[in-house]
């Protein structure tokens, strides 16, 4: 079983678009499981037509809560909280302490500080995850509730579920649509994969961010290849990326042209291969060929 993650550093370079197309090509050669690891803003479902099979709650960390009956308003909790989560509400009749869930990190400092037993720690329901059937294989995706800590735990969870399902069904490929950035969720999406496909664009932002995400891949010893999306938008910067990759001994696995067909396909809920665009289809096929070479060699 081989795992491929699609990353970028910068948002909006075309990870989901490419991940869906790679999954489509892979599904013609073997069983595929898909993972949408961008749990903050999961978009893969918009083009692979999933039907939900299972739904699970995701709890992560804890959140503090004040029992107003027991609270004696001593303020020890406020004195200890480093995250500004203790709110002191004053109106003409009384003073009240409340914990703001979006600020609370669940550290329990207030719980330990309270001598009146007025604070309890509750498990935090932070999101949900799903196992769905998509047209290319089973899709493991999630919804992290807004304003939650995106620690990567949810990403790890859906990757484990995908690995388990793939093992049981003797699947060949797991294609992971990665999140933007370089933080925890990116690391959780990358550990143990066989190849990371970095989608970049020939822009100053894209190049800046590519270097940081390549650093992350390097730290994790994950082999990376680079795909330059919208390469014809700025040929000079495209050459800059090629030189950058050469200096880091990284293969440029494909060049995808800037084409209106891409957003058009997305708007219709299709992959770029469904659309039948020759230029795009052959560009993506080249990327898949390069991936396969990596996976075999």
């Amino acid at each position, binding site marked *: 079983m081989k795992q491929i993650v699609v990353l970028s*550093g*910068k*948002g*909006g*370079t075309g990870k*989901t678009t490419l991940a869906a197309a790679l999954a489509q090509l892979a599904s013609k050669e073997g069983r595929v499981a898909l993972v949408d690891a961008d749990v*903050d*803003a999961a*978009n893969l479902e*918009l083009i692979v037509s999933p039907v939900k099979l299972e739904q699970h709650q995701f709890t992560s*960390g*804890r959140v503090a809560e004040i029992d107003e009956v027991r609270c004696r308003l001593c303020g020890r909790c406020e004195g*200890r909280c*480093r*995250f500004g989560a203790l709110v002191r509400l004053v109106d003409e009749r009384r003073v009240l302490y409340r914990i703001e869930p*979006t600020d609370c*990190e*669940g*550290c*329990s*400092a207030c719980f*330990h500080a309270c001598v009146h037993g007025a604070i309890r*720690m509750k498990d935090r329901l932070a999101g949900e995850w799903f196992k769905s059937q998509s047209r290319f294989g089973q899709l493991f995706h999630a919804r*992290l509730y*807004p*304003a*939650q*800590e*995106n*620690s*990567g735990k949810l990403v790890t969870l859906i990757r484990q579920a995908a690995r388990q399902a793939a093992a049981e069904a003797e699947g060949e490929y797991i294609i992971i649509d990665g*999140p*933007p*950035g*370089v*933080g*925890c969720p990116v690391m959780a999406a990358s550990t143990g994969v066989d190849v990371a496909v970095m989608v970049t*664009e*020939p*822009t*100053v*932002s*894209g190049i*800046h*961010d590519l270097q*940081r995400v390549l*650093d*992350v891949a390097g*730290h994790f010893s994950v082999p990376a290849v680079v795909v330059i999306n*919208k390469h014809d*938008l*700025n040929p000079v*910067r495209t050459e800059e990326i090629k030189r950058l990759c050469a200096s880091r001994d990284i293969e440029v696995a494909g060049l995808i042209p*800037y084409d*209106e067909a891409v*957003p058009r396909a*997305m*708007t219709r*809920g299709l992959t770029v291969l469904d659309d039948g665009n020759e230029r795009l289809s052959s560009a993506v096929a080249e990327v898949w060929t390069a991936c396969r070479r990596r996976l075999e060699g």
Partner: protein
Amino acid sequence: MIITVASGKGGTGKTTVATALALAAAARARPVYLLDCDVEEPNAHLFVNPAIESERAVGILTPVVDAEKCDGCRHCAEVCSFNAIAAYGRTVLVFNELCHGCGNCSNLCPTGAIREELRPTGSVERGWAGGVKAADGWAGGTGAIHFIRGTLNVGEAMAVPVIREVKKEARDAPRGALVIIDAPPGTSCPTVECLKGADYALLVTEPTPFGLHDLKLAVEVARDQLGRRVGVIINRDGLGDGRTEDYCRGEGIPVLMKIPHDRRIAVAYSDGIPLTEALDGYTEKFRALLERLATEVGR
């Protein structure tokens, strides 16, 4: 007035809008602060070319155990909510990357064996973009932007502490200053930290299904959970369809600007040219936008 530029989806044009706003506003008398809070991938500097004057390391207060004073009670391991401490006998192991800096272990150690040290996880830089720094310390002249950028070190987990430090730097902004926050994509903690305390949340989207899907999440956080005023900027207008505008209309969310899908803009962006310089008319458009927001917010 504090304006946070956010979005659900990445790559919609937050930095494009944030830098254009800052540049359009900078040519007036009001002090302008541009805070790049996308600390995992800060990009604003590529468009406003700041001169950085100072840099400081920021981080998380992590425990340091004095083995002499430790009596092996293991209370530190018990009270850590993040499993960042393990103890065996009088050996205490601290796992820095899990530490949130809450202070429990240090505060609750019965023998006072734990002190805290700042572990650097990133940096905050401060400088100027465009114009001249006046003698009284802030930009009275035209074109000057107070530029503050936060960067999270590669390999570090927690963006929020770095973002907090960036925002702290702007606390010296005088009343009447314009503070523009360039937020990271998404709707989790780092974005929330950027939206807290903002007078207005400017949500940048593209009129595609991905853009709309993620815009709805952003609205849920900014407007419903955090109670911010929200307005939308549709970037790459003409690229997708009308569902995004229909959604905004249905929700009563103002579409404050539509930036057309234009290859010239894309090419200029690719070379680090801000929107206000790429095409005519945008400086005026963004100034008008700021005036509208100032009226609505009452600042």
